C-alpha cells in the first residue's frame, strides 16, 4: 500500500513540473497520448524486470545484477544508474524550487529555500524507509482529494473542443515522442532497489501495476486539463503550467485566488518525492561502495545534490538542456538493461540446471 503511494507520488508529480513543457512542445495537442505511449513502451521492460526479481526473491535489483552479470559489470551498471539518478534529482529539485520561487517568492534567493528544502528531505530520509513509506501513505489521500478538487474547478473553465485535432502532429510524431519520453517512468526501476522491503511478490506486482495505471490516468487527466484551459499554442510558451492553472481557478466570485492552498498540497508531495530520491541514491551509493550503514551517507549525498543543483546558472534554459541530455541517456538505459538482465538470468539458469 505504501508502495502504491510512493510510486504514484514520485511519478505523478512529474506532470506538474516543467517537463510538461517539453512534452507539449513535441506533441502539441496529443501530449497526453505521449504519456500513454511511453507507458505502453515501458511495459515490456517492466515485465522483464519483474520476472527476474521473482526468481531471486529477497534481493534488490542491484544484488540481482551482481549475481547474474558478474561483479565488474554490475559495478558499472550501478555506477551509471547512480550518476543518472543523481543528476536527475539535482535538476529536478532545482526546477521545482524555481517553480516555487518565481511565482510565489520573487524576492527570496534560491539558495536559502533550496537549502531548507533539502535539509528537510535529508532528515526525512535519515529516519528510514518505513518512515518514508508511512509519510507517503498518510499524505497520499489528501493529495488526491486536492487534485480532484482542482480537476473539478478546472472543468468549469475548460473548453472541451480544444482536444481536437485528436492526433495533434501526427501518429509518427507521437510515437517518436513516446520513445523520447520513456524516462517519465524511470522510477519503477530505481524503486526496484527496495524490492525486499515489500511484503511479497504479489504485493509488489499488484502495487506496481495498479499504481502505474492510476498514475498514468492521473497524468493524462492533468495534461488534458492543461490542454482544455490553455490551448496548445500557449502551453509551449508557459513555463509553469501547474502554477498558471491554479491561478486560473476561482471558487465562486469572491474567493478568487486559492492557489496557496494548492501550492501547500503540492509542496507536501514534492517533499515526499525528494525524500524518496535521496534515500534511494544513498542506498545505491552504499551498495556501490559496499557501505553497510548507508544511512550515514545521506548527509554528504544531500550536500552533493545541493551543489550539483546550484551549478546551472540560468534557471530555465540550462535545466532544459541538462534534462534533455540526461533523458536521452536514461531512455537507452531503461530500454536495454532489463532484457540484458533477463537474458543473463536465463543463461545462468540454463547453465545451472
Amino acid at each position, binding site marked *: *500500500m505504501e508502495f502504491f503511494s510512493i510510486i504514484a507520488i514520485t511519478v505523478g508529480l512529474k506532470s506538474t513540473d516543467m517537463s510538461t513543457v517539453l512534452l507539449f512542445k513535441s506533441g502539441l495537442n496529443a501530449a497526453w497520448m505521449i504519456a500513454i505511449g511511453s507507458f505502453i513502451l515501458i511495459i515490456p521492460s517492466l515485465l522483464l524486470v519483474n520476472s527476474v526479481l521473482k526468481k531471486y526473491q529477497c534481493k534488490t535489483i542491484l544484488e540481482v545484477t551482481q549475481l547474474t552479470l558478474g561483479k565488474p559489470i554490475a559495478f558499472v551498471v550501478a555506477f551509471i544508474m547512480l550518476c543518472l539518478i543523481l543528476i536527475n534529482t539535482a535538476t529536478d529539485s532545482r526546477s521545482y524550487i524555481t517553480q*516555487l520561487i518565481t511565482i*510565489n*517568492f520573487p524576492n*527570496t534567493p534560491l539558495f536559502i*529555500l533550496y537549502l*531548507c*528544502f533539502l535539509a*528537510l528531505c535529508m*532528515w*526525512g530520509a535519515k*529516519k*528510514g524507509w*518505513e*518512515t518514508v513509506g*508511512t*509519510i507517503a*501513505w*498518510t*499524505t497520499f489521500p489528501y493529495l488526491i482529494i486536492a487534485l480532484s478538487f482542482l480537476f473539478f474547478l478546472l472543468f468549469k473553465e475548460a473548453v472541451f473542443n480544444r482536444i481536437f485535432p485528436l492526433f495533434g502532429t501526427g501518429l509518427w510524431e507521437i510515437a517518436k515522442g513516446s520513445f523520447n519520453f520513456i524516462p517519465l517512468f524511470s522510477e519503477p526501476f530505481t524503486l526496484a532497489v527496495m524490492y525486499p522491503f515489500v511484503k511479497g511478490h504479489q504485493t509488489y506486482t499488484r502495487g506496481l501495476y495498479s499504481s502505474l495505471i492510476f498514475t498514468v490516468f492521473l497524468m493524462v487527466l492533468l495534461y488534458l486539463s492543461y490542454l482544455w484551459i490553455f490551448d496548445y499554442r500557449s502551453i509551449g510558451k508557459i513555463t509553469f503550467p501547474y502554477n498558471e492553472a491554479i491561478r486560473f481557478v476561482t471558487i465562486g466570485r*469572491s*474567493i*478568487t*485566488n*486559492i*492557489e*496557496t492552498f494548492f*501550492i*501547500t498540497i503540492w*509542496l*507536501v508531495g514534492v*517533499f515526499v518525492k525528494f525524500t524518496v530520491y535521496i534515500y534511494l541514491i544513498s542506498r545505491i551509493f552504499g551498495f556501490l561502495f559496499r557501505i553497510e550503514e548507508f544511512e550515514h551517507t545521506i548527509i554528504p549525498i544531500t550536500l552533493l545534490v545541493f551543489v550539483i543543483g546550484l551549478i546551472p546558472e540560468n534557471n530555465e534554459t540550462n535545466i532544459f538542456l541538462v534534462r534533455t541530455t540526461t533523458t536521452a541517456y536514461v531512455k537507452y538505459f531503461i530500454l536495454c538493461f532489463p532484457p540484458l538482465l533477463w537474458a543473463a538470468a536465463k543463461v545462468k539458469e540454463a547453465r545451472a540446471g
Partner: protein
Amino acid sequence: MNNSFFKKRKAFVSEMSQESTGNTSDQSLKLFSGDLVQDVNHFKQLYSFPSNVDFMLREFTINKMERRAVLFYIPSLTDAKLIDDAIIKPLIMNDREITDVTSAIGASAIRAEAEIDKAVHELNTGDSLLLVEGQRHAYIIKTALAAGRSVEKPQNETTLFGPKESFIEKADVNISLIRKKIRSEDFTVEKMTIGGRSNNEVFIIYNKELASERVLNEVKSRIGAISKDAVQNISLLVQHIEDRKRSLVPTVLQTERPDRAASFIEDGYVIVVMNNSPFALVAPSTFWSFYHSGDDHYLRFINGNFTRLLRILAMFITLFTPSAYIAITNYHMEMLPTDLLLAIAGAREMVPFPAILELLLLELSFELIREAGVRVPVPIGPTIGIVGALILGQAGVEANVVSPIVVIVVALSGLSSYAIGDVNLNYTIRITRFAFLIAAGLMGIFGMVLCFMAGLIYLTSLKSFGVPYLAPLSPKYKSSGDTVFRKLLTNERLRPGFTKTKDLTKDTVSE
C-alpha cells in the same frame, strides 16, 4: 587526573550509603532472636523511641498463654479501632487456652515473618507487628488506614454521559474502582517497589489474557531500572519511564478516570497505578489515545463523530490560524478577497509594530493569562478575566498598540486549544503553534509546510514502548479503525492490533 577524581567521588558516595543503611553493628541481627527485650530495644533504637512520638508500642501479657507480648505500630498509618478490637482485646480478654496466636486474632490478614528488615518494611506501610516472647518470628497484621480524600468528580476530564468518578490518592481504592468494571479472574495486579528510601509501591494492572508480553516486560524493566531514592507519585514516574524524555510529544497517557483505564485494559493495554496520585498511566500510548476522550464512545454515533470532527478542526485552527495569518498577510496577499484585504489593511494602519511582533506579543500575553488562571487562588479568580479582557484586549486596541484582527486571531486559536482534552497534548499543540508562527514569519507558506512535514516525519518515527506512534493509521494494523472518527459500537469488532493482544476480536467467545 579525571579518573582519580571520579573514583574518589564514587568511593565517597558508597561510604555514605553504607553508613546510612542501618547500624553496621546490628548487621548480625537479621532475624528475630526470640528474646523479647533484645528485639524491643532494637526497635526502639531504630525508630528513635521515645523522642519520635509517631511510634507506639504496647506491652501486655497474652491471657491464658502466660507469655509477654509487644505490639508495635505507627499510629498515623494504622486504624486504631481495629487494633483495639481485633488484636489487643482478644489477646488480653480471651478465656480459652491459646496455643496458636494467629487463630486468636480477629484481623483479616496475618502472617509470620522471620526477617527483621522485611518486618520493618511492612511496619512502615501501616501494618502492626506483634512479638511474642520465645517465638523467633513476628506476626504482621494488616491494619493500614491512611487519611485521604474520598472519591470525587473528575476535574480535568469531564464527560456528559460517562461515569463521574475519578481516581484518588490511595492505590487500593483506585484498583477497586477499576476492578469493579472488569470482574474477571484474568485481571492481574502486580506490585513493584521503587525508590531506595521512600519505598513507593507501583501497581501494574493488566488482563493476562489480553495484554502483550512484550509491552508488559518493557514496562516492568523500565520501572525496575529506576535508581532514584524516592519517586513519590505517578507524575514523577512518567518522566522516568517515557520513551523520549526531552520530546515535545507525550508518549505515555495519564488519565484520571477509572472507566477510561478499564476500557484500555480491555483493549490490551497495561495500566500503572501508584499511591499518592489520582492518575493512572496507560502504556503503550499512541497519538489517538491522547486525541480521543471518553465521551466519544459514550455519546451516540453521530454525536460522537461530530465531537471528534470539532476536535480535529480545533486542532488545526489552533495550530494554523496565527501562522496562516502571518504567512498570508506578509507573503501571499493576493490570496485574500479584496474586501477582506482592505479591512485588514485599514485595521493595521496605525499599528507601529510589524505583524509578527504584534502577534507574538499577544500570543505571549494570552499564554501568561492562561498560566495565571491555573494558579490563581479561587477568591480573586474573576479578576484575571477582567484584567485580561480590559487591559490587554480593549485598551491595547484603543491605544493602537495591537490591531483588532490580531486579537481575533489570538482569541480564536486560544479558544480552540481548549478543545483538546488531554493536558500533555494541549501543551504540545500550544508550543508547536509558536514554532509554526516563526516558520511562517520567515518563509511564508513554504515555512509552514516545512514545519508541518518536519512534525509529520517526527511523529511517524516516534515509538511508545515499541508501538509506532501513529498506529493504526500508518503501519496498517488490524484494528477497529478508531482513529479520527469512530464506527458504530456494533461494528467495532477488533481490538487494536498494535498492542499485540492474544485475542483480536471483541465479540464474545461463542462456546
